[in-house]
């Protein structure tokens, strides 16, 4: 590697630090404020956990949080199963229209969620599905599917297809081979995909916003309504918890995906 002038490298590193600061400072500020007993966020911070305590009593937020978790769990299971099945099909077989089908997975990510969310609202109303948690699950699974397929497909790429052949040569039917050889082999990828789906669902706002029914919402939607109405300080606490949860989740995914997989 060529030696770069020390000064430039130092500037580069400083710049990176600056960017990281930019990305994280607001989050830390918000987290700090969540411990600030002052209702109007007066500085200096009056350290206290009163808002977290208040949170525990805020039924609306608690309900919304539970809804979020429930929806995310269901989404995870459904998206992982459906997505893995599709990924297996792409891995194992070649068939006419495969390319097109792979492309069709991407509209949920490519089209602005505003449009997809409103389209779902309109359509579900029309066919009588309506709004509510069930509708939200329908939407979240559709969003999570592409991610699951991509993650599982990536894992399958490093899977030796000879292993399935070997299993079949020993008398296993294709389904037995999948169940006993392929799936255990790609297990880390499945876990990563599942955690990803959970994160996508848990953090999803736009789709949940349009598909929420009065009184039945997810946590991000509830936070949004509270923000629009005026600040309730519990929101800070709730937001801090949310971001802590999703960041932790994603760190776990990263470890699993990189180290559980390639090693």
């Amino acid at each position, binding site marked *: 590697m060529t030696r770069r002038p020390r000064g430039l490298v130092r500037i580069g590193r400083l710049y990176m630090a600056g960017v990281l600061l930019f990305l994280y400072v607001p989050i830390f500020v918000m987290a700090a404020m969540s411990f600030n007993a002052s209702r109007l966020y007066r500085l200096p911070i009056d350290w206290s956990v009163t808002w977290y305590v208040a949170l525990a009593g805020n039924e609306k937020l608690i309900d919304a949080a539970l809804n979020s978790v429930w929806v995310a769990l269901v989404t995870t299971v459904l998206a992982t199963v459906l997505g893995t099945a599709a990924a297996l099909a792409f891995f194992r077989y070649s068939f006419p229209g495969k390319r097109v089908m792979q492309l069709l997975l991407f509209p949920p990510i490519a089209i602005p969620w505003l449009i997809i969310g409103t389209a779902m609202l309109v359509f579900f109303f029309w066919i009588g599905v309506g709004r509510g948690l069930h509708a939200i699950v329908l939407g979240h699974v559709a969003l999570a599917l592409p991610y699951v397929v991509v993650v599982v497909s990536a894992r399958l790429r490093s899977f*030796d297809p*000879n*292993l399935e052949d*070997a*299993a*079949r*040569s*020993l008398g296993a*039917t294709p389904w037995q081979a999948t169940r006993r050889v392929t799936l255990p082999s790609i297990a880390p990828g499945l876990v990563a995909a599942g955690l990803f789906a959970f994160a996508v669902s848990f953090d999803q706002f736009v789709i949940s916003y349009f598909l929420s029914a009065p009184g039945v919402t997810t946590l991000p939607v509830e936070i949004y309504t509270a923000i629009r109405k005026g600040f309730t300080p519990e929101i800070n606490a709730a937001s801090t918890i949310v971001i802590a949860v999703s960041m932790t989740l994603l760190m776990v995914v990263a470890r699993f995906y990189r180290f559980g997989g390639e090693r």
Partner: protein
Amino acid sequence: MAEVTVQGVSRYFGPTVALEDVSIRFADGGFYGLLGPSGSGKTTLLRLIAGFDFADTGHIAIAGEAMEDRPVEKREIGMVFQNYALFPNMSVFDNVAFGLSVRGVARGELRRRVGEALELVQLTGLDRRRPQQLSGGQRQRVALARALVTRPRVLLLDEPLSALDKALRSEMQIELKRIQRDVAITTIFVTHDQEEALTLSDRIGILKDGRLVQEGAPHEVYERPETVFTARFLGDANILSGRVRDGGIELADGTRVTSERSPGADGSAVTCAVRAEKILLQADEPGAAGDANALSARVQRHIFAGNSLTYLIDWGGETLKVFVQNRSGEVIPEGTSVCLSWAPRDTVLVAP
């Protein structure tokens, strides 16, 4: 009877001909080698017998049963893959037991049979290990045990020794032969290594460009190649061409050469092969003993390999090879005039 019959089998991949009208009968209990360069179709044929692919024409039968509509898992075969394909998330024991467990064999019998299989390949005691913790040779034994434990009718091996280093290869050659004899199972293996084919097989089938070129016992195929390709592919052969004259062959420079069998009609063109090790090299003047064939030429150079020497001989512009055992420890210097002589029966008539 676990005889395998392949009849008139062809396989095409679009415009490419992978196999064309191949027919072989693999006798029950035999150790059969399919030999050929890459692209010859040998692996395709193996996969057709295994059931991973299906022929475009012809029939394949195992123990008399037609295999046209049988998927691989119903063919009762055992297969060892080139990279062994051991299940990485299972222990050695579970790998070997796999075939039995998908058949629903009871725990007790399963354990017994796995133990037997591991003993057969001399790997007892390693059943708790994972494939990643084993050496190449050990992995191959596990793959073998796994394939044999289900008592298949046919054992298929894809380039079984290619991944091993030289020392291991010689050892495994003996091992494979021993195991195959013990189990007495019809075994078909595929290789591009002629030494492997010659040492392991009871019978060899040579494939080139999707066609079966020659078939027979190793000794037979080696001593009596039928084409130039076969002669060159197995060992070193010198190819001489000429015309038939008075029941013998007249070469380009007028030298007369005889063979054991009649070379055909007078005046017709003929090609023959003489193996490098069949030739006697003498530094004296031509004095062919009896009815031996003799050629005068000049030593171009030599390659010393310790226990043997390969001489490259310049004969009227063409280069001939002579393979000489290092008995005297002496080397015939470059430029020496020499006489090459060999017995008539070592002049093998081959198709061009």
